C-alpha cells in the first residue's frame, strides 16, 4: 500500500510542472550563486605574491610550484624590475627573489642569503607568507641535510661505493620529502569554533555557513509549500473517502511523505554535487552530507504535516509555514544563542552536522543525525495519531456513545 500512495503523490506533483521545476531549479540557482560568491570572495582575499627566479633550478621551481598550491596565495612569476614596480605600487604584498646559486646553498644547508625579499609597505600578511615560503625552503634543505648525512655515514662505514652513493642520496632525499606528506611536519592542530571538531589542516566552514542556512531555509519552505495535502484532501473529501476505504493510516501518511521526499531528493543531490565539486568532498563526506540533508528534509515534511493537521485552511497553513521558516532561519543565523533556545530548530541541527562534514569531521554529524531521526520518528507517529484521532472521529465517537449508554444504564439500575 505504501507504494500506491508514494506513486500517487509523485504523479500528483508531477502534474504541476511549475512546482516540479521550481523545486529542482531553486536549489540549483542557490548552488550556482554560492559557487560564484565563494569563488569571487576567495579570489579577492588571496594574498598577491611575486617570485623572481634568477636561479632557474629545479629547487627554485619546486618551491614556486608548491607555494602556488596554497589556496590563500595568488602567485605570479615576474622579473626583478616588474617585481620592484609592483611592490612599490602595492600591487603585490611581497616578492621573493631566488638569487643565483640558490640550489647549491640549499643543498649545503646554507639557506641564509639564498632568497632576497621585497616587501610592500602596505603588507599585512608578510609574516604568514614568509613562513609559507620558508617552510618550503626548509623542506628542501632538510631533505638535502638528511640525504647528505646518510650518504656520509654509509660512505664512512664503506657500505656503498661511489656509484651507489648517488642513488642512495636520492633515495634518502625522497624518503625525507615523503615525511612532509600529506601535511607539513610540525603542523599545529587548530580547533575550529563548532561544537564537534578538532581537525588537522581543515578548511574553514564559516564561508559556507550563510549558504547552508539559505539552502536549509529554502528546503524547509519548499517542504511547507508541497506538503499541503493534509488540508487539500480534507477539503476535497478525499480524506473521508480514505477512512471509508479502511486504509492503513501509517501507509497513507508515510506514503505521501515519502512521495514528496523522493521528489525533493534531486535538490539535495544537486547541492551536494556542487559541494563535492567546490569543496572537494570525499565520497564519505558526500554520503554523510546527503544523509543529513535527507533527514532534515524528512523532519521538515513531518513538521509541516503536523502543522497542516491543526490548520483549518491553506491560507493559515502557509502563513504559519512562512513564519516558522523565517523565525527558525533567522534564529539559526544569529551569532548568539540565548539560553540554547535555538538548539531546538531543525536548521541548527542540520547546520551543525553539515559544518562538521565540511571541516572533515564526519563523526561529528552522528549526533545531529540521530536527533533528526529520533525527532522525525516521533513526529511521524504523532501525525498518524492526530490525523486518525482528529478526523476519523467515528471510531472514537462510538466509544463515547457506548460509554454514555452504559453510564445511563448503570444510573437507571441504581
Amino acid at each position, binding site marked *: 500500500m505504501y507504494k500506491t*500512495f508514494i506513486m500517487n503523490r509523485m504523479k500528483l506533483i508531477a502534474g504541476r510542472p511549475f512546482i516540479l521545476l521550481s523545486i529542482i531549479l531553486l536549489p540549483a540557482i542557490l548552488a550556482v550563486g554560492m559557487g560564484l560568491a565563494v569563488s569571487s570572495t576567495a579570489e579577492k582575499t588571496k594574498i598577491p605574491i611575486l617570485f623572481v627566479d634568477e636561479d632557474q633550478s629545479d629547487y627554485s621551481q619546486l618551491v614556486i610550484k608548491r607555494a602556488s598550491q596554497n589556496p590563500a596565495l595568488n602567485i605570479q612569476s615576474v622579473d626583478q624590475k616588474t617585481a620592484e614596480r609592483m611592490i612599490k605600487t602595492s600591487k603585490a604584498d611581497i616578492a621573493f627573489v631566488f638569487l643565483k646559486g640558490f640550489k647549491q646553498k640549499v643543498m649545503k644547508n646554507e639557506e641564509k642569503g639564498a632568497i632576497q625579499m621585497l616587501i610592500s609597505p602596505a603588507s599585512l600578511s608578510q609574516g604568514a607568507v614568509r613562513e609559507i615560503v620558508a617552510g618550503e625552503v626548509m623542506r628542501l634543505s632538510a631533505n638535502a641535510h638528511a640525504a647528505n648525512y646518510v650518504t656520509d655515514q654509509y660512505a664512512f662505514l664503506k657500505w656503498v661505493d661511489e656509484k651507489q652513493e648517488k642513488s642512495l642520496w636520492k633515495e634518502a632525499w625522497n624518503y625525507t620529502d615523503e615525511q612532509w606528506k600529506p601535511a607539513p611536519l610540525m603542523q599545529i592542530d587548530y580547533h575550529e569554533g563548532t561544537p564537534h571538531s578538532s581537525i588537522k589542516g581543515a578548511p574553514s566552514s564559516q564561508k559556507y555557513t550563510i549558504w547552508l542556512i539559505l539552502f536549509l531555509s529554502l528546503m524547509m519552505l519548499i517542504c511547507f509549500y508541497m506538503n499541503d495535502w493534509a488540508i487539500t484532501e480534507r477539503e476535497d*473529501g*478525499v480524506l473521508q*473517502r480514505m477512512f471509508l476505504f479502511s486504509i492503513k493510516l501509517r501507509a497513507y501518511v508515510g506514503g505521501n511523505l515519502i512521495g514528496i521526499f523522493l521528489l525533493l531528493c534531486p535538490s539535495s543531490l544537486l547541492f551536494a554535487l556542487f559541494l563535492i565539486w567546490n569543496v572537494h568532498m570525499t565520497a564519505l563526506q558526500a554520503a554523510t552530507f546527503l544523509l543529513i540533508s535527507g533527514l532534515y528534509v524528512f523532519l521538515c515534511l513531518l513538521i509541516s504535516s503536523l502543522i497542516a493537521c491543526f490548520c483549518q485552511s491553506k491560507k493559515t497553513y502557509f502563513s504559519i509555514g512562512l513564519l516558522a521558516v523565517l523565525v527558525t532561519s533567522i534564529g539559526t543565523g544569529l551569532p548568539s544563542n540565548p539560553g540554547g533556545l535555538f538548539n531546538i530548530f531543525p536548521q541548527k541541527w542540520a547546520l551543525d552536522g553539515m559544518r562538521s562534514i565540511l571541516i572533515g569531521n564526519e563523526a561529528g554529524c552522528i549526533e545531529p543525525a540521530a536527533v533528526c531521526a529520533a525527532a522525525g520518528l516521533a513526529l511521524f507517529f504523532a501525525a498518524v495519531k492526530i490525523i486518525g484521532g482528529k478526523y476519523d472521529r467515528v*471510531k472514537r465517537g*462510538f466509544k463515547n456513545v457506548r460509554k454514555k449508554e452504559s453510564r445511563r444504564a448503570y444510573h437507571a439500575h441504581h
Partner: protein
Amino acid sequence: MLGTLLTPSAGSISVEGKEISEDVKEIRRSLGFVPQEIALYSGLTAKDNVNFFARIAHRPVPKEWVSRLIEMAGLTKHMTKKVKHLSGGMQRKLNIIVALLNDPDWLLMDEPTVGIDIQSKQEIVSFIRQLGNEGKTIIYSSHDPWEIETLCDRLLVLNEGRAVFYGTKEEALKQARERFPGLTDIPSFSDLLGMVGMWR
C-alpha cells in the same frame, strides 16, 4: 451517520443485524459511499483515480468489474482526461464509480446530482437505476422530487432531524389523501413532495 463519518449523540444504527458501533471497519467494508463533493484527485486522469482507489480497496478489484462500471457510466472515452477537465456530470459519475469499486453490498448516496445540468442528471439517474435493477441496495438522499419519484421504491422523509414518514410511494400518496380529504386531485408525486410540510 450511516456513512460512518459522523457519530450519533444517542441511539444506535445496525446494518443486517450488525451494530455500527461494534465494528465500524466491518460496516465500512460492505458500504459504498458517494459523498456530495467530488472526492477525487482533480489533477489526475480519470483512469489514474480509478486505478488508485482500486488498489487501496478492501478487496481485490477485478479489471472486468472496473471496465463494466466505466462502460455503464459511459465514461470509456473520457478515462484519459484529467478529472478537472471532465464535465460536472462526468465527475459525478466517476465519483459513483469509485464508491462502487469494491462491489459494496449497499450504496449510500448523498445528493449525487447536486449542481449539474438536466441532461447529466438524467444520465446519472439512469445509471443509478441500472445499479438498482442489478440488485444493489441504494440509500439515496435528495431534495429533488423528480429524482425520488424516478429512483426510489421506499421513502423516508426527514423534517428537522426527525423521521416523519417511512413507506412506499403509494403509501405516501394514500396518507396525503387521508390527511387532506378535500384534496381530491393531487397532480403528481413531485407536487406531493413539494407539500412535505404536511407531515409536520
